[in-house]
């Protein structure tokens, strides 16, 4: 794909996603309470933070704390007074679908995800490759096992060429680093497969994360090292990739997370690198670190949301105790 075409498509997709995001914000105005906030009969609010279509935490916001937050117009205390339950990773029921948009010089794609159950999800992927043709695939995935610190996933994809691809990934997460294993094999007759292993260290250099991966893809071994930094909802990165038989390649990219929509979520990846080539391109569980809970908290648990979620008669000046 020529550079001009890439730029045009990228600009078009960004415009579209921005427009979509804007419509999501508009809809949020109508309903202050995100879906992830559920009010029980006692006035407590349960919040399940969602990142990457997954849920791990279940956080119970106590009604007295909510009252205090509303009273002082400050949710900071409530954040720490809320009870945090750490569960195994499951598919998040909300948003009901989300979109990954990937724009690279080699190919661009649009992936539509929607969860079917806690462990099953489906995806439709539309690719626009080097050969200037569109292709598509339909895939389903299943969380084979999960703990609060591990996530194993197996997927099966069927392309328009009847190409069948099986992929799997394993993610181990800690508060300072994560490991990932990814492997796929497709079209067994052509023996196309890839496998890679990587690790990411958050804040390895101040605010900069460091990640690396090694593997084999397209019959070629490779090694990548990536530095990334998260600024608000945009993750920018620089990647140095070395493939066997070729000179090292430096790529740049950015990922834009349009979260907060009621029923959908968009992630946009713009990179000079080929998407999906490395495990570094795969999903990350970094958003599910505890340190990131505050990041998840801020946009969701607002005073407005609390005020709308809790009936006024349950808001009391007196600090009741659950």
């Amino acid at each position, binding site marked *: 794909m020529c550079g001009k075409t890439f730029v045009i498509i990228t600009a078009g997709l960004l415009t579209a996603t921005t427009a979509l995001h804007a419509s999501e914000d508009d809809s949020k105005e109508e309903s202050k309470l995100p879906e992830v906030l559920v009010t029980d009969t006692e006035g407590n609010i349960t919040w399940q933070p969602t990142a990457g279509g997954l849920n791990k935490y279940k956080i119970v916001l*106590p009604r007295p704390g909510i009252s*205090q937050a509303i009273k002082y117009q400050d949710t*900071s205390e409530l*954040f*720490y007074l809320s009870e945090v339950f750490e569960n195994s990773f499951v598919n998040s029921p909300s948003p009901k679908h989300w979109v990954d948009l990937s724009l690279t010089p080699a190919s661009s794609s649009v992936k539509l995800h929607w969860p079917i159950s806690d462990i099953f999800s489906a995806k439709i992927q539309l690719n626009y490759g080097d050969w200037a043709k569109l292709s598509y695939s339909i895939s389903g995935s299943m969380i084979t096992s999960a703990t609060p610190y591990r996530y194993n996933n197996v997927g099966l994809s069927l392309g328009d060429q009847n190409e069948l691809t099986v992929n799997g990934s394993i993610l181990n997460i800690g508060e300072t680093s994560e490991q990932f294993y990814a492997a796929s094999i497709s079209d067994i007759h052509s023996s196309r497969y890839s496998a890679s292993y990587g690790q990411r260290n958050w804040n390895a250099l101040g*605010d900069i994360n460091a990640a690396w991966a090694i593997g084999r893809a397209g019959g070629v071994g490779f090694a990548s090292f990536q530095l990334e930094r998260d600024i608000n909802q945009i993750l920018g990165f620089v990647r140095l990739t070395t493939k066997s038989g070729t000179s090292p390649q430096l790529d740049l990219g950015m990922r834009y997370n349009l979260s907060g929509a009621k029923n959908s979520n968009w992630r946009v990846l713009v990179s000079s690198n080929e998407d999906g080539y490395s495990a570094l391109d795969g999903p990350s569980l970094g958003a599910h670190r505890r*340190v990131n809970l505050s990041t998840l908290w801020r946009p969701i648990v607002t005073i407005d949301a609390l005020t709308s979620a809790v009936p006024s008669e349950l808001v009391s000046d*007196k600090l*009741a105790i659950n």
Partner: protein
Amino acid sequence: MFKFTKIIASIYLIALANTAHAQSNANLGLLLEQSGAIEQLENFSPSAAANTSTGIPNAQSSDTANASDVVEDEKILLQSEGKIHTETSVVQRYFRILTDTKLEVYGAQEFSQQQDSQLLFFNTVGKNYQLAPGDVINITLRGLKNLDQTFKINKNGNLILPDRQPINVSGLAISDLEETLLTFMRYDDASAQVFISLETARLITVQVSGAVNRPRTLAVPAYTPLSRVLAYAGGVKPNGSLRNIVLRGRDGSIEEVDFYDFLQSPVGSNDPVVTDASRIFVPNQGPTVAAFGFVARPGIYELPTDQSMITVQELLTLSGTSIIPPGLVLEAQFFDSNGISKRRELTSDDTISAGEVLNLRFVQTKLQDTITVTGAVLEEYSMASSEPITFSELLKGGATLKSDAKLNFAMLVERDGTAQAVDLAQALRGNSKKISVGSTLVVLDQSTYLKLVNSEPNKTDDPLTAAVANAELGELFLNGSRIALLPINDKDSFDTILRPNYRTTPRTNLNLAIVETADGNAQAVNLQALLQGNQIFPVTAGLKIHLFETTFLNRFVDRLTAAKDDLLIESDLNQSVPLARLLSRANVVKIKLNDQLVAVLPGSSSKKLSEIIDTLGLEQSFTDFSDFVELELRSNRDFAEFSSLSLSQNYSSILPAAKNISFWSNTQFSQYLNSLDKRNFTRISSIGVPIFVDNKLTDILSPTSFSSKEGVATDVLLDREIYGLFSTVNRYDEVSGSWGTTLKRTRNLLFSPTNSNSIKIRVGDEIALFTNQFIDELIQGQQVQSTKTESQKSTTVADTQPGFTQVFGSVDAFEQQALEQIELNEVDQSNVVLRDNNNLLRSYSVPINGAVLRPGLYPIAEDIKLSTLINTAGGTLNSADNKRVSVQSIDIQNQSIVKGNVKTFDLAKNDPILTGKYFVEVPYLINEASTGKVTLSGEVLYPGDYVISRNETVHDVLQRAGGLSPVAYPLGAVFSREALKESEVANNNLLAAELEQSVMQLAGSENPNAADQAQLLIGYARQLRTQPTVGRMPVNVIQENKKNLVFMQSGDSLFIPKRPSHVTVMGAVNRKSVVSYAPEKTVDGYLFAAGGKTKLADQKRSYMLLPNGEATQLSRDTIVPPGSVIVIVPRTDRLNVIGLTDLLSRVLGNIATSVLAINNVR
């Protein structure tokens, strides 16, 4: 002065010597011999020295002394004075030896009486008085010319009358002068009459010498009789003669005067007057005889000159004895040649020689058929009677008695000399008693009676006193002194007999009187009883009734007791010894209280302790008495025998015959026991049973105390909490010569001593008791000791069984048997202390643990019921599980102490008897309701202490406390737990130590900033060690995590602060700050407010402490609630190569935690 006078006198005498006057010459010698005369003359008139005409004083001038001058100056009479002789003469001594009577020399006293100088002028001189110079005459003229005037004849002998020429009257008699003057007067007047009288005689000098009492030269008025002159000379000495006095006149005439004539018959007396310059010489006495006895004038009589014997008749005449009644015996007493006194009978015609004595001895006789009354009667009389008469007849119904006659006592002396005391009042009332003929009734007045009472019968010549001594009568004594004599009486009561002689006073000891019979038997009786009894008290001959005053008696007996043999050296032997012997003979009991004599009681009336207590009036204080009563028995043996009684047990028992009974008050008895020395302890322990409490002598009991069914419950023991399960009886085994110990439960020993388990306590046993406190302290001490003994810990059983080491730490102790041989300590001199029984106590101790009031070790002496042991430990607590009381037995196998069976009992159903060695465990009920107390403070509605149940959470308690207040800050809740606090302190100290160690390493570093870093680290270390800790545990107080419930523990505390409005930033920032909080502020905002991070800041390791104490990793998006502490950790590499960041991070964390907690609390 005297020397000057002699010079003047010498000049005077020289002048005299120049005169040719013969008389003057004669007197000169006398004057020269009598210096006193010279002095007298000098005193008379100095001008007299110039008178050379007479040589003696005359009446020429007023200076011429005469009798008037003597009145003015009596010394004139004493011309000179010789030595005064007052000794008894040899003759007197001789006759005294012979007659045993002092006899006076007849007539010697006649001239010894004091002479009155006024009498000088009453001499009867008559008209033939020859005038001389110095005489003063009174001349009365009647006729044509009357004159009434006195004139003194001047020293020239002239009488100078008015209008007349001087008339020399010297040598003229007064009558001659009258004639001469009349002759002169009649020349002019034929009717003239002259009357002349001597107004005052002149003085003359007379020398008296020889055997007179005061030989001297006297100036006496002229014409003084010889007898008067002798009197002025002090009289004749006893050895002077009265029968041959020589009077030498101025003219040299000698006259011998026998004054016996003068004394015998003044009519024919020869008492010549002395003339001027006469000399009187009294020669020594001639031969003498004496007369005494029934003579009128017993005395020594001088025989006439040249006679050596005299007839009896003449001597009787001399002695004035004119009557010689019938029955009078004349006898001569003399010394024979051997000097032995002899007598010979004489008649009146016989002669008696010089040196012999005539004794007229009267042989008395009297009327035989009379009855005589003497003494205190109006007039002593005798009443003739041929047969006995009554007292009333004799005394005329008492009319003959004097008013002060003593009626209750008189003496009746029979003819044969026997005497009898008589109660006159009684005798007068009745007519039965009659007086035999020949008797003498001596009626006594009070004073005579008292003399009799106080007389010493053996030391008197008084016949009445002697008669009393031999009379049949009784005597009454007070304090050992006789105060009354008692007539024989067989009709009256004691009170009647005593009342006239003695009235009881408050001082009288009514408890004791001693009645002593004539045969010496003494019987102590109760005086009060005697006085109150109406029975007749016979007073027999020789009966002695002894009364005492309490003070005297007690003091006397005290002295007697204290002095014992030393009493014999006391001054009042005569009284003390008989009285002491009397008390010894009489059956008296000395009663002591607290070692002080309080009473002496008759033994016969003190048969019971109750009677003694009653007699002494001690019922009120009886309860304060010690139960131990000490007795000194009445014994015939040489040594004292003692015994003891129990006051409570023997209160009404018949007492053995005792000499001393000693009571003690509890207080004094305790002091007495404390001060016992070895000797006294040995003595008292030989009659009693010493009670040692906590190894110290506390009480002594009589063996009879242990015979009570009620038990031995003395005040001393009741005052203490005596441990009931363990006591010992130490008994000396004479066969083995050692002390054996028997262990008994206190109840079986003291409080139920008659049951079958008791031991029969006897004299010499020693009982050791222990107080609960002693047991407690002893076991506590043992516990401390046992935990420090490694050897004890090595025992397996000891390790697994609490309390085992306390009891069975020593195998030797465990193997002690119930009867073991121990040696008593030597009794200390100052304080009697029993041997240390501590090991014995420990070896028999049984542990009881768990839900009893006083868990611990309890010495057990015998088999015991489980319930008894539990009760001793204070009983089970309400929280005790009485159904699961376990008893763990202890056995010995293969020389090892091993655990035996464990049996569980339900106290309501089983009460086993425990024997051997064992442990007892009373488990607690499972307590679900109350497991402790917690404190809630701060912003809760009802802060305070809350009792918590086992499953209560912090939220439950908060609900009970009413929940949080509107201003509460739940996130800042400070939940403290003691265990965590200790852990926090330990952690801080550990960190501080690590820091300090790092400083040491830093010292060797070449880092140029090492000094600054070291200072920083030391500061952190100091802060860590000193900062307060709260033992905090994060808790969410408003939401309970059902999966992680926070259960309360006793001692927990929860503080709810108010919502803060700040955030603290510390660590590697430019300024440690407290920054105001704002909801929208980010971490960067707070860091900015703290001046920003320093170069040392390590953002990656920095963190934030939440107000609830939790820490959270710090990121840009970190939510910062109010009250948080942001901790920026310094970088490692900037500090030191050894890597301190981790350490510093923790240090800062701990410091920040404290800061946080302090912030919250404040």
